């Protein structure tokens, strides 16, 4: 019976995984701005243009690599597609107080939020960092990617370009 239940679970998962896109709206979950002010993820918007949501942490080496790589290209990306980067720090409580200084030090021009209690990760099924999501202008998650290897940011941008071209 146990094997049967596990098989069903894997089956359910497998069927769903076959979808390359989630096509799900960003859920409405309380989150904090980098200044500690309350916000809600349902208010993420970019005036109908695509967004990239990235879950990261100050201690996560591949996350920093990815965000640095995007920072080098961000001006061009914005000029081409109008895309907006939203980064959500999943640091534990101690580190959340240093997120603002970390970002400022890096010179990243992204919108920064804190998922201090992990609720956004839970609601958006984030398994690990970095987790990169491309969101279309209506707030639908259309692409998800876990982990980071050099050049992965370009895959995200390809999706963004397609979304921008649809408009």
């Amino acid at each position, binding site marked *: 019976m146990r094997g049967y239940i596990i098989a069903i*679970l894997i089956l359910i998962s497998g069927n769903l995984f076959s979808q390359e896109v989630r096509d799900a709206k960003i859920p409405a979950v309380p989150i904090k701005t980098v200044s500690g*002010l309350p916000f809600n993820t349902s208010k993420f918007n970019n005036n109908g243009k695509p967004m990239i949501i990235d879950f990261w942490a100050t201690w996560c080496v591949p996350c920093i690599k990815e965000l640095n790589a995007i920072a080098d290209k961000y001006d061009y990306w914005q000029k081409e597609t109008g895309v907006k980067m939203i980064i959500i720090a999943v640091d534990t409580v101690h580190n959340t107080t*240093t997120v603002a*200084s970390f970002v400022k030090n890096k010179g990243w021009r992204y919108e920064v939020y804190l998922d201090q*209690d992990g609720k956004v990760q839970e609601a958006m099924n984030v*398994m690990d960092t970095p987790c990169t999501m491309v969101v279309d202008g209506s707030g639908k998650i259309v692409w998800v990617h876990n982990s980071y290897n050099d050049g992965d940011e370009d895959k995200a941008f390809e999706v963004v370009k397609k979304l921008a071209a649809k408009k």
Partner: protein
Amino acid sequence: MLKKLLFITSLFVVPILQAQVLDQGQLHGSMEIDAQTYKPDSVIGAPSVPEKMGMNAFTQLDYTNGKISAGVRYEAYEDALNGYDARYNGQGIAYKYIRFADSTIDVTAGNFYEQFGSGLVLRSYWQYQLGVDNSIDGIRLKYNIYKGISVKGVIGHQRYFWGEGTGIVRGIDGEINLNQLIPHWDTVKTKIILGGSFVSNYQAPDNTTYNVPGNVGASAGRITISNGGFSFYSEYAYKINDPSVVNAYIYHPGQAFLVRTNYSTKGFSVSLSGESIDNMSFKSDRTATQNNLDINYLPALPRDETYQLAQIYPYATQPNGEMGLDAEMRYTIPKGSLLGGEHGTELDAEFSAINALDTTNLNDLNTTRQAYSVNYFGVSSKIYFNNLTLELKHKFSSKFRMILQYQDEAYNKDVIQDEVGYGIIHCNIGIADGYYRIAESNTLHLEFQELYTKKDQGSWAFGMAEMNFGSNWFAGLLDEYNYGNPISNQQIHYYTITGGYTHNALRVTLGYGKTRSGILCVGGVCREVPASDGFSISITNSF
């Protein structure tokens, strides 16, 4: 026969159900499977495992339709991987909830995770890698009373493996955002947020030796102030006497105080944190030990270590008492300067010092059992943890970048790992971490690390070569070598070969090799990791 019929039927029914559900709302979720085979190895201390393999797995499904959402998480431990509590063995629904949320009210029935402030009096969370799940099964209500004022209340029992703890956890938390509440303050540059919490746990006072309180209450107050690049956060918590196994049934009240402040401007930031913890273990069962049934969370001052050898001696927060400071400075040498080069150079320095509380023994264990008094303005000379980390990151070209790190650490293994006879281990760690981009989607990742110490198991060296093939495949070879072990036949190579595949949210990792015994810590919370030798597979996905 019936089982086979059910199985075959479900192959067709489940996708149809999925399609119908997806048509009406949104179904999403995540899954992870981790399995490991075990081969006994007396040299590294890997035990003989009768089952020959272990497996942890879960699938979480969440369904959202407008303001209503519901979810379920099914977990299976057949049997649990070594290092996880064997009481997890088995499978079943570990988490289920239904929730209604709009802009004013948010109600959850079933299991939920919650945190008040920084967690000093309440934090229920799930940390799969640590085997920690102290979700509350009950009711949670959040209500935005007025612009800038919000309250939330919780009541329920905590998860305890496949059952629930006996304690009833009740809590209320309020937060006031002065910039939203006070007219015209929304444009004021200085932002101020105040918060306060009260949490109580009831457990029948059924101890036959001590007269223990049935209701244990804890309260906390907090403040956040920010202005441009400056931010300040402080929280203080107090808990009434809470005799338990963890504090050896003393009646000393608990206190915790933390302060974090930082200043940043482009290319430069500095942060300073301090923490004092005194008898602040708060569990919903006074007989619970380890990470079980924790109501609160005591954040660790030092940062989480990510490099292999730096994880040999990680810090774990001491709930019975500690006092510490942490200072960190980051500076980016501008691009185009002599030292900054074409891409800039990043420098990072962090110093952490954590000692025992300055206490005086009251010798009252046969009378009032307060046990000790504390001088909060002093620091004991007993070192728990000292660490100086210096890090340099430099991108030499678009193809090559490097991270160099040096650590000088003093680690009280007897206190942090609850051992005897090790004393303070002083070690020096050097790390070189380089990435070379061979082609558009091919990067070679090389790491060399050395931990030098004359104590405990002696010195270690670590080498890793990892390569990405195209954008989906990767393979790596790792060797952790305990070359300085004072026992010659323990000078072992812990080699691992690993490879895998990633595609969007899917990640499959296969490995074979030896793992040394040690502890794994995330945010100051740790679990033991026993030595192992064998194959492993890990599959994660979300959808």
